[in-house]
């Protein structure tokens, strides 16, 4: 078994450089946190590590966070089981096998450097052996003494507080759906919890009963309403939080700009589960916010991808007509980047005002621009006039694309005719079908609760978010850690199709977007029953 410079560490121990400390300074713990999460020291140098006896690991792979996770609770994946490193676990003796004494500062460093556990046994070959300076050891120990040491906010002995965020300027149908569904869900949840607590108390299988009993909490729902300009939202969120901290934020809607809420959640380390937000500041790189999709950005990429594989020459003239808002501009950027990958470089854009685009304006636009491909990111009312009588059928471009983020064709009365034959609509949800409920798993609950009048997409998304929280809490039971909740969901939400809103979902470690594809549907197919499955694109 390879050993790093144990002499260095051993000498340090002898000289008392590493001493058991009470109340290490915060700066040392911060350094330790950086080492734990990145395997990189504050001077920018990286830790050296060997795994499986002879395999060197790059810092991205060597960081403790990879296997022991941000929460410190560890993971069981790929046949590799990494232990709970939170302070209460590490610095206490275990009570269940494998029995070992508590770690102390010395035995902890010995484990990391030499791979020897607190009971003297050898740690598994999957645990790397690290080269640690005395300073590294001090910092890491300081951090580990804080990891998971404090109880999570928003959880008392009897209650779990959750919040939802609803901006007054968000579409009414979404606000209604979120508020109504969340309130009903929480009401039902609390009614069930009382029942289950009594059952557990009476249960013969005492171990089972006790672990559920300990985990049960009444849910308390806080509705955080945001008013005024988005620049004031951060302050409003902070003030809601000061009044009452939630364990997690569930669902919510802020219209097209969720970024203030996203930033708040990252800064305050609050899980933010599946808002309705149509064009979120979403990415996989941040930790606390989980999204359904990247909304308009995804649809833009799918559009570009479809164009690139449509068998048309790459020098065709592509024109995007869009409104004056951030969502459209962001989508345009994603669209052009994706086109660029496939060497389509002749794309331009025209911004139009919010008012309905008349047939006359379309005619002028099409005549002057003469696009081969038209991408219309406009409300349905504006696009419909493209099929108006004053436009020569031959002048409507052969290829017309619309996107669900901007045009809700399902809510519209679409006339037959050449327009609906030409339009390819990018649609991210499970397809509506003649005579069938579109989102069975969710709509059966909504109907049963007398909430069938709510907008089905919004209500189904709000419901699924609640179910996701419930599922996550059932997994983590009494381990009320916000990070552990998210880590648990990374596994729980993968593969198994638990929502009918999207035809395909997946998740994984360090992933935060549930759905990554969309259909490209001939517009006529959305109105009639669908018999052929349209193309599904995951760019």
């Amino acid at each position, binding site marked *: 078994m390879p050993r790093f410079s144990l002499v260095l560490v051993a000498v340090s121990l002898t000289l008392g450089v590493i001493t058991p400390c009470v109340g290490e300074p915060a700066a040392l713990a911060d350094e330790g946190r950086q080492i734990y999460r990145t395997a990189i020291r504050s001077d920018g140098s990286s830790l050296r590590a060997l795994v499986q006896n002879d395999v060197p690991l790059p810092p991205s792979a060597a960081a403790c966070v990879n296997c022991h996770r941000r929460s410190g609770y560890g993971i069981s994946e790929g*046949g590799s089981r990494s232990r709970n490193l939170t302070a209460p676990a590490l610095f206490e003796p275990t009570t269940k096998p494998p029995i070992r004494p508590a770690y102390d500062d010395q035995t902890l460093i010995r484990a990391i450097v030499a791979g020897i556990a607190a009971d003297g046994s050898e740690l598994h*070959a999957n645990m790397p052996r690290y080269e640690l300076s005395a300073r590294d050891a001090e910092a890491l120990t300081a951090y580990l003494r804080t990891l998971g040491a404090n109880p999570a906010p928003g959880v008392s002995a009897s209650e779990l507080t959750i919040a939802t965020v609803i901006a007054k300027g968000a579409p009414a149908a979404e606000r209604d759906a979120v508020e109504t569904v969340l309130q009903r869900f929480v009401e039902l949840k609390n009614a069930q919890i009382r029942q289950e607590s009594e059952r557990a108390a009476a249960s013969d299988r005492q171990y089972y009963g006790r672990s559920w009993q300990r985990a049960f909490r009444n849910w308390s729902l806080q509705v955080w309403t945001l008013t005024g300009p988005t620049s004031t939202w951060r302050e409003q969120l902070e003030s809601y939080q000061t009044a009452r901290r939630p364990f997690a934020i569930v669902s919510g809607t802020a219209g097209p700009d969720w970024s203030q809420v996203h930033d708040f959640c990252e800064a305050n380390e609050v899980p933010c589960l599946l808002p309705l937000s149509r064009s979120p500041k979403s990415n996989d790189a941040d930790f606390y916010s989980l999204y359904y999709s990247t909304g308009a950005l995804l649809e833009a990429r799918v559009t570009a991808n479809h164009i690139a594989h449509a068998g048309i020459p790459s020098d065709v003239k592509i024109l995007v007509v869009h409104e004056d808002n951030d969502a459209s501009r962001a989508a345009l950027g994603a669209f052009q980047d994706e086109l660029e990958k496939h060497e389509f470089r002749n794309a331009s854009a025209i911004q139009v005002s919010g008012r309905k685009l008349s047939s006359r304006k379309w005619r002028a636009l099409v005549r002057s621009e003469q696009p081969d491909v038209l991408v219309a990111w406009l409300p349905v009312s504006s696009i419909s006039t493209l099929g108006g009588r004053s436009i020569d059928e031959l002048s409507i471009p052969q290829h017309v694309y619309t996107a669900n983020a901007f045009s809700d064709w399902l809510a519209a009365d679409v006339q037959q005719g050449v327009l609906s034959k030409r339009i390819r609509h990018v649609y991210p949800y499970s397809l509506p079908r003649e005579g069938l409920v579109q989102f069975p798993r969710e709509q059966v609950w909504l109907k049963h609760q007398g909430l069938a009048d709510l907008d089905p997409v919004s209500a189904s998304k709000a419901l699924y978010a609640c179910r996701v929280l419930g599922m996550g809490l059932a997994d983590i039971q009494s381990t009320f850690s916000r990070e552990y909740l998210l880590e648990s969901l990374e596994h729980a939400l993968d593969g198994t199709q638990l929502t009918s809103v999207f035809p395909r979902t997946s998740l994984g470690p360090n992933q935060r977007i549930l759905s990554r594809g969309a259909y490209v549907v001939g517009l006529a197919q959305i109105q009639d029953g669908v018999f052929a499955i349209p193309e599904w694109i995951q760019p």
Partner: protein
Amino acid sequence: MSSVSVIALLCFGSASASEPPAADPHAAHRKMMSAPDTKIEHVAYDVPDISLFDSSGRAAHLRDVFATDRPVIVNFIFSTCTTICPVLTSTTLQLQQQLTDDAVQPNYVSISIDPDYDSSDVLREYARRYGADWTFLTGPPDDVMNTLRAFDAYRGNKVNHFALTLMRSGNAEQWTRVEGLTSAQKLARIWRDTSL
């Protein structure tokens, strides 16, 4: 614990206690969890008639990638896996180094088990991060899942994935299937045994 005894432990190691196990109601489960680290078998696989895509976005017909006369070493990873995939990839790099001077060089192939997230671009970045110069494959989800099934690598959700390395020397009828993580040295030994 005194500093002196700590140094002694560090420098000279320690014997792990071997006592008869106390009555443990979870013994069977823990035995299953701590099964031997590597399992080696010899299996024949039918390479399916599927085309995936490599990290440059080029089509990769599996029956060409795994043509009978090509010596290959294959593993299964996904780019956001933080537990065993970094180890698997790093071990493969180390293995590649160990085999540099061998007369027969294997063709290394890594297949993504997460086609939803792992586009060609993402795999290219993963390969760059490790300095891995071999073939990385992804594709439409159904094609990838059928590929995994063909090699008995499919376990449903990603959470169930496991360390799997398949080796086949040129014109061999059977593949050597190595389940579990192990050192690069041991993998080199297994590879050289297959080429005999």
